[in-house]
């Protein structure tokens, strides 16, 4: 028997596979397809203080082995999430979920985190300081060590639950930012959010996305994500959640060897709605193939 359990900031997961924020909604669409209790957990759609209608469409573009999105944090706002979505999640998922939070000011983050921290189902707060798809949004917080640390520090003051900071890959030195967040009290780090990319529409000769740029995700970014997880793992003591292009059980193992305690699956859910379930199912086979008996033991094994 192989052991797929891992512990993330003191919470035991049946396996390290989590669905990534923004690609799993609030779980409902997937729960209709399979029992999502097979997942370690999932991070729900990025939630802001006020409801957001998101960016104009098209919001999606295709790229080689990946995609761009400029959804722009469309979400019903934290109150509705607490009133409507969390009770909905309670019906389909019986382990702690990760609350993904975005904001446009430090006080935004603090407000939303404080509210979600009090919700029983929330296991962790995943503070997204790296959304590239909103003007003046989280991205700016995540590209400087000082502002990332400030958000961390203020959010930590109001939260009892573990606070995980989700970092942007669009930086010169992710290690510096990771360390700043650790220093400010972060309990964990999620990486990576999307890489900033762009496509043009050759017929109109204009940017394909009216938002102009979009966030690149999918297998194309896997090697960049893996590198960052590897570098950050080496530099910090808090757990790292690895994501970016993960699409197979082998990718999960590679991310964990690089240093991830848990692994999120994002875009893969969109092209294969069963992706998370398939990966979880396939883990024991892949573990056996690479002589792994306990996933927890391989975390950071490549160092």
């Amino acid at each position, binding site marked *: 028997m192989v052991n797929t359990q891992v512990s993330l900031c003191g919470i035991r997961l049946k396996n390290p596979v989590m669905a990534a924020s*923004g*690609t*799993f*909604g609030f779980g*409902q*669409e*997937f729960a*209709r*397809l399979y029992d999502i209790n097979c997942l370690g957990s999932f991070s729900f*759609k990025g939630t802001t203080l006020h409801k957001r*209608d*998101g960016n104009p*469409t*098209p*919001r*999606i*573009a*295709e*790229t*080689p*082995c*990946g*995609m761009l*999105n400029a*959804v722009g944090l*469309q979400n019903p706002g934290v109150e509705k999430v607490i009133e409507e979505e969390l009770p909905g999640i309670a019906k389909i998922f019986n382990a702690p979920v990760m609350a993904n939070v975005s904001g446009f000011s430090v006080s935004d983050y603090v407000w939303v985190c404080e509210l979600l921290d009090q919700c029983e189902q929330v296991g962790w707060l995943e503070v997204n300081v790296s959304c590239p798809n909103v003007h003046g949004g989280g991205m700016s917080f995540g590209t400087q060590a000082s502002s990332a640390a400030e958000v961390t520090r203020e959010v930590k003051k109001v939260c009892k639950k573990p606070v995980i900071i989700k970092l942007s890959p669009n930086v010169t030195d992710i290690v510096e930012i990771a360390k700043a967040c650790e220093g400010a009290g972060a309990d964990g780090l999620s990486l990576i959010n999307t890489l900033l990319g762009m496509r043009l529409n050759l017929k109109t000769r204009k940017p394909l996305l009216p938002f102009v740029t979009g966030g690149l995700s*999918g*297998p194309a970014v896997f090697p960049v994500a893996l590198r960052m997880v590897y570098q950050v793992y080496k530099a910090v003591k808090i757990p790292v959640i690895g994501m970016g292009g993960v699409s197979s059980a082998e990718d999960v193992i590679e991310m964990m060897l690089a240093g991830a305690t848990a692994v999120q699956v994002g*875009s893969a*859910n*969109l*092209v*294969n*709605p*069963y992706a998370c379930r398939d990966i979880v199912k396939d883990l024991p086979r892949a573990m056996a193939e690479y002589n792994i008996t306990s996933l927890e033991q391989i975390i950071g094994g490549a160092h």
Partner: protein
Amino acid sequence: MKQVIWELKEHRQIAKNTYLMRLSGDTSSLVNPGQFVEVSLPGFYLRRPFSVCDYDEFGATLIYKVLGQGTKAMTRYEKGMKLDVLCGLGNGFDLSKSGQKPLLVGGGAGVPPLYRLCKELTNMGRQATVVLGFNTKEEVFFEQEFLALGAEVIVCTMDGSKGVKGLVTDACAFENHSYFYACGPLPMLKALCSLAKIPGEVSLEERMGCGFGACMGCAVMTKTGPQRVCKEGPVFHKEALVW
């Protein structure tokens, strides 16, 4: 929604840049005309959405127009090929509202879902009028098929090379109908909705991430807030939309 494997049984060009695929496999998740599928194309990351043109318990028909790289690749698919398909997506048309003499309006690649709709309406004893718009004669398809269903068919072409010259809106006698169904390019749908005094519903297109409601990639603004073309749509009531 259901993930199914469909086998390509027949594949032929039916008009300029326009191809028909007959596929066999599980269609049990299809419940309404106007629903669509998401087809995975080898070598492309995102699936491609196509309306179901027709189906029975053994398989379905899709009609596609060559638009970009993916549809260009599709033209090379050969009989026997297996396709990974998410089937039974979206809401589809509301048959109950049709009235006795519904008007069906399709433009170009928007024509396919109207075929199944027309079939079901005719089976219900409705007298459908179908207005089909194309750029030019070479692009016209399915005129005969709609006639064979017993519908009245009006073909329009922009260049006048066949049927009525001009836009579909020029050929729509809204006053003779109680309700309309439309699918086609956005400008056509907008024009229809603003001209038509009668109620109706339109099927929208939007670039999609997932096609089943998970990513918020396809939202369109409605009077009750943003709604997903892939989930609450693709068919929306004329009155619901905020253009």
